[in-house]
């Protein structure tokens, strides 16, 4: 089974995010980057599928040189090969997806996995875009996945519950927390990953249709009032919620 996992490289969720003075970009100083947390579920699922069905796990990332760190981490977890589609320039979601799809086409993948969203731009759409560009079936925000022959049964999270979706290979899956427990890279895995060569390629250029005008920070929230230090404050809180905030 040919498995592909697409990964990104994003600011740690504990990072403070600041906008540059000209409002055109996000400040890079003091921001720590990590493998996108949701991608770990996608990698783990691919490794489990490989253990069950055999085959290879290919890792692809589109972005700058730094993205190699995410690929490296996936290799250390047990993935077989890594490809960096190197492009430092801004790409909107559609042109990222077209770069990925172009490469995946050459790999004849049965299953392509993504994290359900990158925790930078929070779009959560690259998997679906790539699927449609490839002409693959797609199930997003998946918390359970079963493959039997060509049949794919997946549970996806929806408002107030989940839905069971049935489709067939080839398929793109975007992974939600709960799909599995991602493994830690073993020392042996880390050492082996260091020896692997990450193949660099240049994706075709294409025109962005989403042009970024700039970034702003949300207005700082005024700290409110402390209305008490024990249970006697409960009555006052209820009064404020009812009469001042009018939310109950």
């Amino acid at each position, binding site marked *: 089974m040919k498995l592909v996992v697409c990964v990104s490289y994003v600011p740690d969720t504990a990072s403070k995010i600041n906008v540059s003075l000209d409002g055109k970009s996000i400040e890079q100083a003091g921001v720590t980057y990590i493998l996108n947390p949701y991608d770990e579920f996608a990698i783990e699922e691919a490794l489990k599928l490989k253990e069950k069905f055999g085959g290879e796990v290919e890792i692809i990332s589109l972005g700058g040189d730094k993205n190699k760190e995410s690929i490296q981490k996936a290799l250390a977890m047990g993935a077989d090969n890594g490809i960096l589609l190197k492009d430092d320039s801004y790409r909107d979601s*559609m042109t990222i997806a077209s770069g990925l799809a172009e490469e995946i086409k050459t790999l004849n993948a049965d299953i392509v996995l993504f994290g359900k969203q990158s925790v930078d731009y929070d779009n959560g759409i690259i998997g679906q875009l790539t699927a449609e560009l490839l002409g693959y079936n797609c199930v997003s925000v998946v918390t359970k996945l079963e493959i039997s022959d060509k049949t794919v049964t997946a549970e996806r999270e929806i408002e*107030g519950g989940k839905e069971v979706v049935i489709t067939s290979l080839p398929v793109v899956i975007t992974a939600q*927390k709960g799909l599995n427990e991602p493994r830690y890279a073993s020392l042996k895995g880390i050492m082996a990953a260091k020896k692997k060569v990450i193949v660099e390629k240049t994706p075709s250029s294409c025109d962005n249709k989403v042009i*970024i005008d*700039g970034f702003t920070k949300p207005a700082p929230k005024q700290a409110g009032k402390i209305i008490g*230090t*024990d249970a006697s404050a409960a009555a006052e809180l209820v009064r404020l919620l009812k009469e001042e905030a009018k939310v109950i």
Partner: protein
Amino acid sequence: MENKILVFLEQRTGLIKRSSFEIASYAYSLSQKINASVEAITIGKEISNIEETGNYGISKVYFYKNAELDLYSSSAYKKIISSHIKENGNNLVLFSNTSMGKELSPLVAVMNDGALAVDCTKLEIENDTVKVTRPVYAGKAFMAAELKGDVNVITIRPNTFPLNKISESNAEIVVKKIDDLDLSVRVLEVIKSDSKLDVTEADIIVSGGRGLKAPENFKIVEELSQVLGAATGASRAVVDAGWRPHGEQVGQTGKTVSPNLYIALGISGAIQHLAGMRSSKYIVAINKDKDAPIFQVADYGIVGDLFEVVPELINELKKIKGNE
């Protein structure tokens, strides 16, 4: 240029969702400001409240009706919506940013060679340029962008635009047959979660964190939720510890919420948690630690033991609820 706006009305249980009517309302208000027409599209087996769409200013709804589409099918939906767009020449297509809207909108964008922006909290059309604003980094910043597609596909965050009932008149329903039904990706069944309300759809949320000390103590959070008719939420720490299901997690790697009232019990307020709930209209924090960052964003705080404060709060709420 005349803009031809198409609003996708989402239903799962035979009822069009409130968040769809929100974007219907907003699309109508746009059409009053610029040269634009608005129509709506919906898909399903039976839908009881389609006519209501007229109340929000949309006079025509295309209903693609098929007995096989009792449950959602992304493959069928994407083809129906895309061919409708092509036939009618729509250049602006609006979805609600729900699990369905977020899955479908990219598929539809590719099929129409369009531009896509999701989870938008602002949408304006100025001199024929489509401008959106959307939260990034879980709301730690906002991104402003322009869409340059011949077809622009946009999803709007629920609770962003108000429902605006402008008339009593019903919409005209045009029932459409589906020629070539593609069920290659389809829902077999929907499993409802035990908790009654989902955090992304609730007006009030009561969330608990590590300050609850043990999973069984969450009954106090649930009890307060019940009195308020609220959804129950949780911090990442307690979800990671296995005390609560992931569906309840609020924060950067959980759900981003903006209810009218958010009550944080025993939650310190890590950056990733604040990112997921800071846009709530009113925030209440109850925490023993007066230096907890949650108090920086709270409108009302009680620095105290939640095991003493919350039972009293429940009593007080029952009193006023009893008087109503």
